């Protein structure tokens, strides 16, 4: 127990880690708040600079940015009616009307306190649930890992995009990109076309920078002239009576947020929308109607999206399957440092697990401090026009892509992925599944081949193994269910039932 406490407190006691966590959280608030910058974009650029650092320092900075960024989006949603991040879309519905009534400070204050409560509950859930899940996941074989990775990619595609087909297409495209290079088992070349650069494969960070950074910059060129309306900010520290009054709602939304965050492929945005919907249904007589400045409509999504951060770490650390796009990047950081996220991570490197738990807790405390201070400077910074931000994103993307291996070719690749991502986005494709495909593709390939070799390359035995093992059976059923629910007849019936 004392050993665990020691691991937990690593970043609290080491001045450099303390500083990096604080810096990350502070920067995250601004990154999440500035429309045009996103936490995913920042984390993917940061990873290319921090891979030379020791793992604790890199994680402290990225985790801080993650926690701060999820919260930061709410501030611009309240002040400017522009959600800085997708997870703050629901926050704007009631947050901005509150600001228009001159209650911007109060709205920011209560959302900060509730975000911290949500964040801490998410971290507590991570500390309790992850060891239990990891104990169970030790029983997993190659088959289960292959199935889990496929489910993870498809879930991201289904939940975040317009249609299952588009999500699956994007995921498969990512898997194809992940296959480029030498086959690690046979050294056969795959899609290299004689290029020495391609033989080493496509670093997933380059793909991330291209799809999240460059593509987003190109997509935002259309909104370059958008001008936001500013609001006045009064007292920020919320009244204790308000905190007490909305605590139960905050706890309920935290539970929901943690659960949604823990599902592979979901994240703060879905958690926030569901929590908002839940609050709207469960609050019978709000002081102000929802949509016109109901505090319940502000608190529920804000608590849920921060709770989802802890939840997203659960499948990432226990199964090696990212909970959302940012944890997909953190998985990459762990791989770069020679660590393999999965059930053995908790038994082989418990110090790392408890370090992450302690670090996320610390980041939430920093969030409370930074969230309730510095609002005047903040309002000035977030007014930075997109006309300046977009070119800067491109430059940061270029230097990020280059820095991974000091290879200028990677800048060209990032640009090419960016253009590809721009076209896909224009037609309703999400880039999240592509990135998951790039990261999980090699894992699916290796585990499929191991499982097939175990079945003596016999399809019948392979299918029998899938259906005879209880865990594989459940996962196969879940996978089949995902396909079955997408059959037009069933989908239409479900939609009709929901409408009625």
């Amino acid at each position, binding site marked *: 127990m004392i050993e665990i406490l020691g691991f937990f407190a690593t970043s609290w006691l080491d001045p450099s880690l303390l500083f990096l966590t604080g810096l990350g959280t502070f920067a995250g608030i601004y990154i999440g708040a500035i429309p045009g910058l996103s936490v995913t974009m920042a984390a993917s650029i940061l990873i290319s*600079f921090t891979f*030379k650092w020791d793992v604790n320092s890199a994680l402290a900075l990225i985790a801080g940015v993650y926690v701060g960024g999820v919260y930061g989006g709410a501030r611009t949603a309240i002040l400017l009616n522009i959600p800085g991040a997708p997870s703050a879309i629901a926050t704007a519905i009631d947050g901005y009307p509150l600001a228009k009534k001159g209650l911007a400070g109060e709205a920011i204050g209560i959302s900060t306190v509730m975000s911290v409560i949500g964040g801490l509950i998410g971290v507590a859930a991570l500390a309790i649930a992850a060891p239990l899940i990891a104990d169970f996941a030790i029983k997993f074989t190659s088959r289960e890992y292959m199935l889990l990775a496929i489910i993870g990619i498809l879930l991201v595609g289904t939940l*975040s*995009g*317009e*249609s299952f*087909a*588009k999500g*699956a*297409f994007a995921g*498969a*495209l990512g*898997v*194809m990109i992940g*296959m480029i290079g030498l*086959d690690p*088992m*046979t050294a*056969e*070349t*795959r*899609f290299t076309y004689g290029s020495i650069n391609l033989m080493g494969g496509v670093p997933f960070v380059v793909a991330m920078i291209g799809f999240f950074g*460059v593509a987003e910059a*190109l997509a935002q*060129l*259309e909104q*370059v002239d958008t001008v936001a309306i500013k609001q006045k900010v009064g007292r920020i520290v919320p009244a204790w009576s308000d905190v007490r009054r909305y605590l139960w709602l905050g706890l309920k939304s935290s539970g929901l947020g943690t659960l949604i965050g823990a599902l592979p492929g979901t994240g703060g945005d879905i958690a926030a929308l569901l929590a908002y919907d839940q609050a709207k249904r469960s609050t019978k007589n709000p002081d102000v109607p929802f949509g016109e400045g109901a505090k319940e409509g502000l608190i529920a999504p804000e608590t849920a999206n921060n709770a989802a951060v802890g939840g997203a770490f659960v499948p990432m650390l226990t199964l090696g399957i990212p909970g959302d796009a940012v944890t997909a990047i953190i998985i990459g950081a762990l791989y770069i440092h020679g660590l393999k996220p999965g059930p053995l991570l908790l038994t082989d490197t418990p110090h790392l697990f408890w370090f992450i738990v302690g670090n996320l807790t610390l980041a939430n405390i920093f969030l409370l401090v930074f969230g309730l201070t510095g609002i005047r400077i903040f309002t000035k910074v977030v007014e930075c026009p*997109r*006309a*300046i931000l*977009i*070119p*800067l994103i*491109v*430059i*940061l993307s*270029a*230097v990020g892509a*280059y*820095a991974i291996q*000091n290879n*200028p070719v990677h*800048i*060209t690749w990032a*640009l090419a992925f960016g*253009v590809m991502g*721009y*076209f896909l986005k*224009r*037609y*309703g494709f999400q880039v999240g599944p592509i990135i998951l*495909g790039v990261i999980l*593709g090699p894992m*699916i390939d290796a585990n*499929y*081949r191991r499982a*097939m*070799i175990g079945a003596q*390359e016999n*399809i019948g035995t392979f299918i029998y193994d899938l259906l005879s093992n209880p865990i594989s059976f459940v996962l196969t059923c879940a996978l089949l269910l995902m396909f079955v629910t997408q059959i037009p007849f069933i989908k239409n019936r479900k939609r009709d039932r929901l409408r009625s």
Partner: protein
Amino acid sequence: MKPNDTLRPGERLFALLLVIFAGYAFWESYGISGFRGLTTGGVMPMLASCVMLLTGLVFLSDSLRKPRAPDSGLAGVIAYLFPLRVVLFTLLVAIYVAAIPSVGFLSASGGLLFLTIWALWRKGPIPALLISLLSIGAIYVLFRVVFQVVLPIGSLWR
């Protein structure tokens, strides 16, 4: 995200191009090791490209069912997919990437920042120049000094 009920300009053509691309990817995947075995290096690429092909066909058939958008002519497609601002910006970025090996990272980045900020912000060349110089200074300190990234100097200055 809700499915879009009307066709976006050029959506059918895009769906068709995706199907062709997926077919080509399948052909290339087949070329890796053919159908020699179930654990060869080409199996996973073939499976992935097969998924791309099937879902691409679903996307294409969906697009054929949807009603045409009023602005689905060539002009509409160009306006939707290739706004002048996006085309010019992408061209500038492509020139920037090509110029890095010869003029170096900092000079090329400075040039790109100045031109794009000047064009997009429309506050005149002086503010754009000041912001570009400030940004380049910050990038140099952050990446060269703090993160110790060896930025390309450029063959012209050697």
